């Protein structure tokens, strides 16, 4: 009986330098797949490589041989001696390997629990493996289960619900102040990676207009061009507060850029329409006293960081529910694998056919006239004969021994043809 084997390393077991060194490019993966599937000990193989993990998932008749082959393959492709990475590897077998794959795909094993990219990464790794014909019955089934479980966990738990990046947390907050961000006007003061990321998120929400203010006007113009916004001069900021709704502060300025009085005047002009300041700058750009004005909200980088920390805690709590779903899926997968043996399949096929025959005879016979009630014994004999005749050829085929037949595939097909798994 084939075993499922997984070896790999991730962000908890290996330092980033090593992960970088062992990461597979798409070409590496294709080469590695064709190398491994030729090996007699390895029946099926899927390889996935992300920035936080490299894992080789195999179906094998010989665990130790397969593990060695995979390690040698890694060493050969990346030209690094096995000893240099061997200690960082983990190795999981059968149920534990299944559990690991399910957890990884569902993002329970990610550095940031619940991050959504991993599912897509594993899907594309699986696609590569199917194109190379490296994945077959068991891994096909396992990965399809993994995708299903990942989606289920995402929809039934809050694992991916809350923002875990500064820029996204800012967008979520905006949505709790303004009903829809459509047509809202945004002002970005200064520049910086985080501010630009937040602006990108906001643009995706169809904001109405974007203004960019920068100390050096030229820089502002080039930024505005990039985001299809409008560059304004620094001196125009107080006047613009009357029009815009969301302000992102991200300058390197040592003193405050927006003072309480600016905002107070603007609020009168804008008839108390709410105003939301996102202050990502350190030192801060926006006077904290602004937050005390009615209908004005100011969040600085620490506030946003606190929100993210709380959200991460929440995700971890939700992940516990995800673990339970994984546990169930592991058991179901084990049942499916066990059923791929010959005897249980023949037994359930026989049971199904017998039930059909008995049912139909019991339904039809009493309705026929001129037929004496069939003796119970004779009836049973006839049923058994029919079932045996039908079962004869399939049983012989399934029990046939020989390396050239792909027995798991036959068994799987039989189970599916007759819907034996319901």
């Amino acid at each position, binding site marked *: 009986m084939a075993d499922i084997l997984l070896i790999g390393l991730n962000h908890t077991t290996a330092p980033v330098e090593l992960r970088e060194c062992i990461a597979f490019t798409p070409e590496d993966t294709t080469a590695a797949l064709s190398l491994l599937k030729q090996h007699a000990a390895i029946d099926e193989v899927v390889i996935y490589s992300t920035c936080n993990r490299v894992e080789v998932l195999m179906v094998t008749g010989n665990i130790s041989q397969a593990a060695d082959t995979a390690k040698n393959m890694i060493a050969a492709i990346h030209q690094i001696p096995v000893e240099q990475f061997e200690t960082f590897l983990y190795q999981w077998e059968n149920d534990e390997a299944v559990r690991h794959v399910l957890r990884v795909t569902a993002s329970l094993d990610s550095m940031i629990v619940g991050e959504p990219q991993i599912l897509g990464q594993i899907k594309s790794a699986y696609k590569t493996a199917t194109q190379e014909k490296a994945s077959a019955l068991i891994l096909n089934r396992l990965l399809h289960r993994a995708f299903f479980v990942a989606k289920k966990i995402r929809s039934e738990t809050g694992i991916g619900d809350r923002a875990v990046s500064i820029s996204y947390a800012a967008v979520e907050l905006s949505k*709790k102040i*303004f009903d829809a961000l459509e047509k809202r006007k945004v002002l970005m003061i200064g520049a910086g990676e985080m501010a630009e990321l937040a602006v990108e998120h906001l643009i995706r929400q169809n904001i109405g207009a974007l203004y960019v203010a920068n100390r050096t006007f030229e820089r502002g113009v080039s930024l505005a061009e990039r985001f299809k916004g409008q560059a304004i001069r620094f001196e125009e900021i107080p006047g613009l507060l009357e029009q815009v709704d969301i302000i992102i502060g991200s300058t390197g300025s040592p003193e405050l850029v927006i003072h309480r009085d600016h905002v107070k005047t603007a609020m009168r002009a804008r008839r108390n329409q709410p105003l939301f300041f996102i202050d990502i700058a350190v030192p801060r750009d926006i006077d904290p006293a602004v937050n005390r004005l*009615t209908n004005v909200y100011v969040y600085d980088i620490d506030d946003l960081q606190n929100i993210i920390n709380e959200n991460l805690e929440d995700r971890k709590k939700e992940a516990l529910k995800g673990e339970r779903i994984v546990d169930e899926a592991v058991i179901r997968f084990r049942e499916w694998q066990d059923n791929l043996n010959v005897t249980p399949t023949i037994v359930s096929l026989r049971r199904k056919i017998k039930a059909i025959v008995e049912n139909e005879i019991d339904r039809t016979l009493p309705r026929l006239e001129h037929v004496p009630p069939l003796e119970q014994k004779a009836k049973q004999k006839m049923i058994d004969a029919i079932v045996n005749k039908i079962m004869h050829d399939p049983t012989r085929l399934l029990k046939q021994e020989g390396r050239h037949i792909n027995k798991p595939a036959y068994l799987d097909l039989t189970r599916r043809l007759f819907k034996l798994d319901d």
Partner: protein
Amino acid sequence: MNHFILLIAVFYVLSAIAYILYLIHQKSYWNRSGFYLLIVGCLFHTVHIAYGTFMAGHLPVHGLRETLSMAAWTMAGLFILFQTRYPLKILGAFVSPLVAATLLIAVQLPMHTMEPPVSFNSIWLYFHIVTVFLGDAAFALACGLGIFYLVQEQAIKSKSHGFFYRRLPSLEFIDTTGYACIVVGFALLTLGLVTGFAYAKSVWGRFWGWDPKEIWSGIAWVLYAALLHGRISLGWRGKKAAIMAIIGFAVLLFTFFGVNFFLKGHHGEFTRW
């Protein structure tokens, strides 16, 4: 009919429970159950009130028992209409328990058999009662939204995002829907006062009689008028509007109960028990 009103109360209580479970667990089937239970309760309640009207020959608003029942009915009905326009599900967790509690109090009170004055059967009076009750119901919704606004604004302002922060919608949405409720409530209250004046004129020969209820209704009307004026011309929105919606409803409650209990007047009959 006493058993029938108990049945209605059971539906309202179940709806309230479902809505509270929705508030806690955020599962949409709780929201749906709460909503449909409320609809069934409200339909039965409509039958009950129609029957009462048919038997008495006028709207059943005699004594506190019947007026409270009427108030619960209009609140439930208005909320159901409101839901079709503004899908603010979480408001059910405020309205449904309020409806259930109002009807439960009503059920506790003794039945009242009062011979209505001859003048009771007037088209003006029908309009007066219906519009005033519907207006009050709209202001009750506005009050609930005002409370929601203050809770949500406090969460965002103080940066402590707890239980309600996640469950409540955006400030702007609460503010807009609250405003809509005030507009509807104000229109109905105005109609209610006008039809009341017309009725007073037809029965007592005068529009205004300095009755305490009249005075307090006038105060409430002025307060809501000020709120609307402030919003339109001075931009009183958000927190200020929310607080005023709550104060306005407190004045209305006093007009409804307080005036009848503590002060005398020609509306006293309707809240006697």
